[in-house]
């Protein structure tokens, strides 16, 4: 209070206090600031959508059967959030966040769906490290690439890109672990990070079981590294380029003869490498009118495994299986009117799609692609309605499948106003 009085002569302060109009309120003296408390910021996100597609078995089934990206039975039960025909409630997302003390900040996000609740994120972060370092621990989304660290309600399309879904599953790479990142003192933006994750088997690319006949591996079983670079663009232009790589343990169990029991097991290492790009133009107009976002990510993955057990052809045990797949997506979103946005997305997976099999043969599969178009309306910063249409052509074990999908999404955010990263 001392300095505020110091900048005024006393008579003026006296005059002000005496003559304040009814609506004017002196800062700090009123009760308005006293409602602040040490409670964390709390918010809830409700995200529902209607989905329909013209395939017989449903899009989730097709994505599970794609050539070269096939599913495994290792790693226990995966619960799928893949769209059902009709109404879907993605989940209720409860978020809490606050500074813990002058050293740490914390946040917790619980994702509650109809059957269960799960810890989506529970994060401790440092706020006190010098020289641009930050340490993060808990359960969190890896910061590699662009879309991985975003929650589903932040996506510009209702569903996640194919390559993410196929490599990392519905949740992306989200696991227990630690992250160390460093903001370099360079004249441009450069952020580097390394992460170690337990690798509990949620992501297909890093499926883990650890039960005989598969060997057990001690955690952490996944390592990730990434770089983000942002040149200084003038005005309202923002650009970020990224490169990333990850490696970890992978285990698979398969039912080769289709009798319903697992009969051969693979153990080995998975890696992926990739790059991402995001360009944003923030138009001067209000309500998002004229804003433009272009983003794209490319992934290349390799699974290098050895057969550790085979009930049907035991002589193959010890032979290796190598899978090479890749994929990318590019999307653009434009605010064509205040509060209205339109977007297009083009995706392709399996440009490289090769498998070297344990019996010494090799297989090459074709690529799949999908186009998406979306239109969304944002009545306020706290609600959004979206229509999205996907048209995809998928390479599966049963041949090529063409599927058209429609999404109608409705989501809201309650409570604290969340700011979004670039």
């Amino acid at each position, binding site marked *: 209070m001392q300095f505020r009085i110091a900048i005024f002569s006393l008579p003026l302060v006296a005059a002000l206090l005496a003559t304040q109009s009814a*609506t004017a309120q002196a800062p700090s003296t009123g009760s308005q600031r006293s409602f602040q408390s040490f409670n964390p910021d709390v918010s809830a996100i409700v995200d529902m959508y209607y989905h329909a597609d013209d395939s017989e078995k449903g899009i989730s089934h097709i994505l599970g059967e794609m050539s070269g990206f096939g599913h495994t039975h290792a790693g226990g039960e995966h619960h799928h959030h893949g769209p059902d025909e009709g109404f879907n409630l993605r989940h209720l997302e409860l978020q809490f966040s606050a500074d813990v003390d002058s050293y740490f900040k914390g946040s917790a996000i619980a994702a509650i769906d109809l059957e269960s609740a799960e810890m989506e994120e529970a994060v401790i972060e440092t706020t006190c490290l010098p020289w641009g370092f930050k340490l993060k621990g808990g359960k969190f989304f890896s910061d590699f690439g662009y879309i991985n660290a975003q929650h589903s309600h932040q996506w510009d399309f209702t569903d996640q890109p194919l390559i993410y879904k196929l490599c990392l599953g519905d949740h992306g790479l989200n696991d227990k672990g630690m992250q160390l990142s460093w903001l370099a003192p360079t004249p441009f933006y450069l952020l580097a990070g390394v992460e170690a994750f337990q690798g509990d088997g949620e992501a297909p690319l890093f499926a883990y079981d650890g039960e005989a006949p598969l060997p057990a591996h001690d955690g952490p079983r996944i390592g990730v590294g990434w770089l983000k670079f942002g040149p200084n663009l003038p005005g309202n232009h923002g650009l970020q380029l990224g490169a990333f790589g990850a490696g970890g343990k992978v285990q698979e169990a398969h039912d080769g003869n289709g009798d319903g029991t697992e009969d051969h097991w693979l153990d080995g290492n998975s890696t992926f490498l990739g790059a991402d790009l995001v360009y944003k133009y*923030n138009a001067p*107009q209000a309500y998002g009118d004229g804003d433009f976002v272009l983003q794209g990510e490319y992934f290349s993955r390799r699974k290098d495994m050895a057969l550790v057990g085979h009930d049907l052809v035991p002589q193959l045990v010890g032979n290796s299986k190598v899978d090479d797949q890749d994929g990318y997506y590019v999307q653009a979103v434009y605010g064509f009117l205040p509060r209205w946005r339109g977007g297009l997305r083009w995706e392709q997976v399996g440009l490289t799609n090769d498998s070297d099999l344990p019996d010494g043969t090799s297989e090459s599969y074709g690529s799949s692609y999908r186009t998406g178009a979306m239109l969304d309306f944002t009545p306020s910063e706290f609600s959004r309605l979206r229509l999205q249409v996907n048209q995809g052509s998928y390479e599966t074990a049963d041949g090529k499948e063409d599927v058209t999908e429609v999404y109608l999404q409705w989501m809201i955010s309650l409570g604290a*106003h969340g*700011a979004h990263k670039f």
Partner: protein
Amino acid sequence: MKRFGLLITMLLTSCLVSAATSDKLRIVATTSDLAAIAKAVAGDKAEVYSICTGKEDPHFLTAKPGFIMQARDADLWIRIGLELEIGWEPPILDGSRNTRIRVGGKGHLDASESVLILDVPQTTVTRAMGDVHPMGNPHYWLDPFNGRRMAGAIAEQLANIAPADAVVFRKNAEAFQKELDERMFGGELVKAFGADTLWAKTQDGTIAAFLQDEASKSKTGSWIVAMAPLRGQKIVTYHKSWIYFANRFGLTVGAELEPQPGIPPTAAHLIEVAETVKAEGVKIILQEPFYSAKAANQIAGKTGAKVVVVANSVGGQPEATDYLALMDLIVRRISETR
């Protein structure tokens, strides 16, 4: 190897660059108005950067990497506060990893803590009322009296960070305040009655009668005199962003083109506004350049009111080169519509 060498060179250069400028403070302000006042107060003791350019709506901004970089090196971060920057400030502050400028830090100044705040909701607020700011209307820099207070607060914060130059900062702030007082009331009035008396009269509304007074009638060329003929008029604004300016110069805001803060004009609401304009004899529809002028022009066409499009931030229009020039511009644009 060549590239690696280049990278090392760049890294070293960046160290040298930051070493060369390290004797100057680095101030990063969220808006161009804060930056302009900070420049006046810091003089040649600091480099001042602004996140907003003044051309865009400060409610909606993207926390781009370049902003994080500016914040990384800042000794002082100044914000408007009252949740104006809530959509983009946290990721910048957090991403910068700059412990000096975190909320509560020595290098963090929330300018709203030292100004007069209007529109503080006195009842329960819900988001059904639109994008209401629960701690008060954040467009307070448009009251020149608050500009005066912001300069004082910045000077004290700078004095706290760099005590060796405290005298310079306070002297600069006083010079800025004196200049502002003179533009507001005219040099002669300030000399004759003192700035404090005059500001108090704008606060309680007695300035109108005071200006009528024979003795002071001839003192022209000031904002208060230019705006005097408009006193008591009702105006319509696009967003709830002109209440501070209106309040200081004795205007009242009869309606906004936005049906609710943050919601663009709807046809039904514009019909109501047009009726208000006719019934109340509103002559001025005031709005910022970053809003579409379609709605305002439509009402003007129906009612004969005049549309005034003027920047509400430094840099929003070419003439608004600094804080005083911005106020000059606003006063001129509004007063010339009579």
